[in-house]
């Protein structure tokens, strides 16, 4: 086969295929950045634009592609694949599409390498530009940011399409015949996106295990890296240096990898349990920052600055950690995330945080920096909560949130127990009933159960539902309604008259009496009206 090809042609062909592969990866990843791409046409040839197309080279993408190729070229039986997947803020991931650059044995001996093959490869790249905007992942990638990010992974070898779910579609971008084989570029994309919604709220340990296994099972050592489709300029790349990282280009990849998966998970959870107070403080911080981070990530595609979670060399659990790092640290481009690091050590919380009602968190953020007394109170309550159900940091956070509107310490607690976020846990609301006579017992269960329900449901789902019940609780403590002069305040007034007393006419014994009386007096009244019938008639006349 190769004997028909002159050495120069062979050399040219290899070069063309190599650069075609690199440009293919660039086009695909850039199409999934979530931004509109625009490159300028240039009438004067620069000599550096391969295939006469202006396609930017993102250095880390080129690096990843070269690493995956490891000096080889796509050939027969050796395909280069770019896998695009989606990762939600909760840690669920899903493969969206796999682009495959393959070669089959069908050779076209007569084709001219330096001319026809080159031009056809150029045409194929243009087709790739067009097709990358047509598959469903394009629209998803344009909307990435808050809730999910798009990751890419390059691997070399056999094509793996099992992660695309059932019923995946294939679209062929094009083919180019060469003297050594026919290059084929195609895309297999997922059509069934139902996977995401069913796994949205699963945040227990088995899910983390599955994610780890997901990457551990990959047979290829050099391709466990999932990378965000996020563009960094060369300048930003150079500015980033991390201790312990051998190659500055490795920053992106090694930051995603952490210490071996099992170890990593255990360390995380242990730290969590061993230092409850600090964990509480962390969770106090994280919601705020988490929200801020996610906003900023969405609005500005800043550089990703991974925190040094450990000796970052292995590629396990990359996407999980990576994405969280992505989501959380994207806030300040270039600022070392030292203060936030402890929270990064607890991805479990990160996994939960975003689902804990960003809207709720927004509400509570202003309240957060308030008095230390409040914090102390909350901490004490949270330790109380922790005693009730230790493994759930989320509970603590809810405590924190409910306490946001509590602006007075102990005396409030005694006078109006509804101020206590843990009113639900208090065995009886005695104080409550003493002060608020008119509040009926049926009222308090309504008040208590949402809170109880929310705190308990955290164990199971921890979804955003409970927070809406928290809002109900807040109504009982109206802001700015305290008046030291009057014994009664708006909240108490509201509670008092929320359920007004029964009308006397509706009470059974009274109504029964009145009925009997009415019946007795009826004949007398009738007789009276009969006497005065003329007067009534005259009155009616005047009305007409």
């Amino acid at each position: 086969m190769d004997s028909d090809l002159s050495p120069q042609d062979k050399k040219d062909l290899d070069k063309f295929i190599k650069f075609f592969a690199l440009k293919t990866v660039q086009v695909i990843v850039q199409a999934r950045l979530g931004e509109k791409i625009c490159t300028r046409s240039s009438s004067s040839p620069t000599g550096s634009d391969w295939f006469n197309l202006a396609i930017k080279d993102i250095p880390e993408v080129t690096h990843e592609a070269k690493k995956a190729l490891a000096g080889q070229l796509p050939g027969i039986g050796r395909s280069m694949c770019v896998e695009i997947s989606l990762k939600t803020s909760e840690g669920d991931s899903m493969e969206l599409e796999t682009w495959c650059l393959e070669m089959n044995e069908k050779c076209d001996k007569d084709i001219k390498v330096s001319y026809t093959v080159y031009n056809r490869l150029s045409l194929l790249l243009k087709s790739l530009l067009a097709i990358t905007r047509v598959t469903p992942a394009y629209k998803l990638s344009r909307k990435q940011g808050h809730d999910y990010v798009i990751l890419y992974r390059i691997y070399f070898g056999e094509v793996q399409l099992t992660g695309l779910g059932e019923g995946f579609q294939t679209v062929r971008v094009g083919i180019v015949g060469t003297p050594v084989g026919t290059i084929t570029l195609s895309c297999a994309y997922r059509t069934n996106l139902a996977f995401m919604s069913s796994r949205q709220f699963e945040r227990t340990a088995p899910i983390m295990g599955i994610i780890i296994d997901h990457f551990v099972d990959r047979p290829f050592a050099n391709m466990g890296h999932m990378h965000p489709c996020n563009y960094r300029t060369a300048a930003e790349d150079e500015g980033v240096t991390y201790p312990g990282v051998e190659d500055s280009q490795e920053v992106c990849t090694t930051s995603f990898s952490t210490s071996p998966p099992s170890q990593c998970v255990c360390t995380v959870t242990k730290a969590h349990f061993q230092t409850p107070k600090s964990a509480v403080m962390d969770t106090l911080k994280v919601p705020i920052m988490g929200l801020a981070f996610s906003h900023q990530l969405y609005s500005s595609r800043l550089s990703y600055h991974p925190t040094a979670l450990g000796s970052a060399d292995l590629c396990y659990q990359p996407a999980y950690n990576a994405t969280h790092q992505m989501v959380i640290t994207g806030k300040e481009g270039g600022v070392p995330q030292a203060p936030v690091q402890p929270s990064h050590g607890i991805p479990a919380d990160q996994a939960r945080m975003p689902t804990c009602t960003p809207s709720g968190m927004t509400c509570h953020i202003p309240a957060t920096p308030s008095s230390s007394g409040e914090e102390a109170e909350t901490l004490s309550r949270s330790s109380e909560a922790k005693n009730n159900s230790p493994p759930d940091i989320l509970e603590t956070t809810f405590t924190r949130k409910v306490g946001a509107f509590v602006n007075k310490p102990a005396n409030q607690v005694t006078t109006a127990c509804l101020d206590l976020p843990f009113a639900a846990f208090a065995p009886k609301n005695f104080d409550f009933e003493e002060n608020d006579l008119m509040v009926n017992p049926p009222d308090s269960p309504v008040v208590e159960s949402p809170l109880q329900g929310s705190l308990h449901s955290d164990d199971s789902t921890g979804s955003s539902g409970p927070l809406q019940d928290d809002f109900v609780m807040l109504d009982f403590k109206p802001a700015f309604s305290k008046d030291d002069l009057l014994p009664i305040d708006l909240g108490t007034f509201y509670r008092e008259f929320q359920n007004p007393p029964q009308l006397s006419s509706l009470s059974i014994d009274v109504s029964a009496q009145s009925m009997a009386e009415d019946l007795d007096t009826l004949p007398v009244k009738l007789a009276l009206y009969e006497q005065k019938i003329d007067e009534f008639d005259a009155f009616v006349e005047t009305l007409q």
Partner: protein
Amino acid sequence: MNCRSEVLEVSVESRQVDEAMLALLHTILLHRSTGKFHYKKEGTYSIGTVGSQDIDCDYIDFAFVRVSSEELDRAMRKSVGEFKDALCNSGSDGVGQISLEFYQKKKSRWPFSDECIPWEVWSIKVNVVSLANEQERQICREKVGEKLGEKVINIVEVINRHEYLPKMPTQSEVDNVFDTSLKDVQPYLYKITYQITDSLGTSVSTTMRRLIKDTLAL
């Protein structure tokens, strides 16, 4: 030589006509444009670089890539605008066809003008629909977006068959194959024609008029 002819059909709302046509025409032109040729002494030439640009449609859930060339975009918009006006003003049931034809010029002896020999014709049949309410429009946005996606895949499929393409010309012949009037890119020689079918069948006269105009153009 046989002229390759491809027909694409779309049904769109009247406000979507411009974007739908631009999307398809630009996708075709992306594949049928090269960088500017710069001929060197030994009969070799170098080719400029073609840039690309993502365009989002406003009335359709769709995005496409076009060549980064304002001149080319302006020419397309002008043709598509004329087509849309004709389509909307014809008073017909809103069926029309716009054709993008790639041709080569063949020099003829005097007094005959150069022949234009098409080698590829893309015809886009448009059916304008009118919708009653916003909900239908929203559905139409998405549906037309999907349809255009399918059309792009069709276009790419045809182009990647690598059927006849004019030979790369020498410097003296380049104007017979390429449109060299643009500053930054060099599409193959093309022309855009359209015809509106209405109940009276006046479409024939429109086409004839254009054909005569083209033939007489020197």
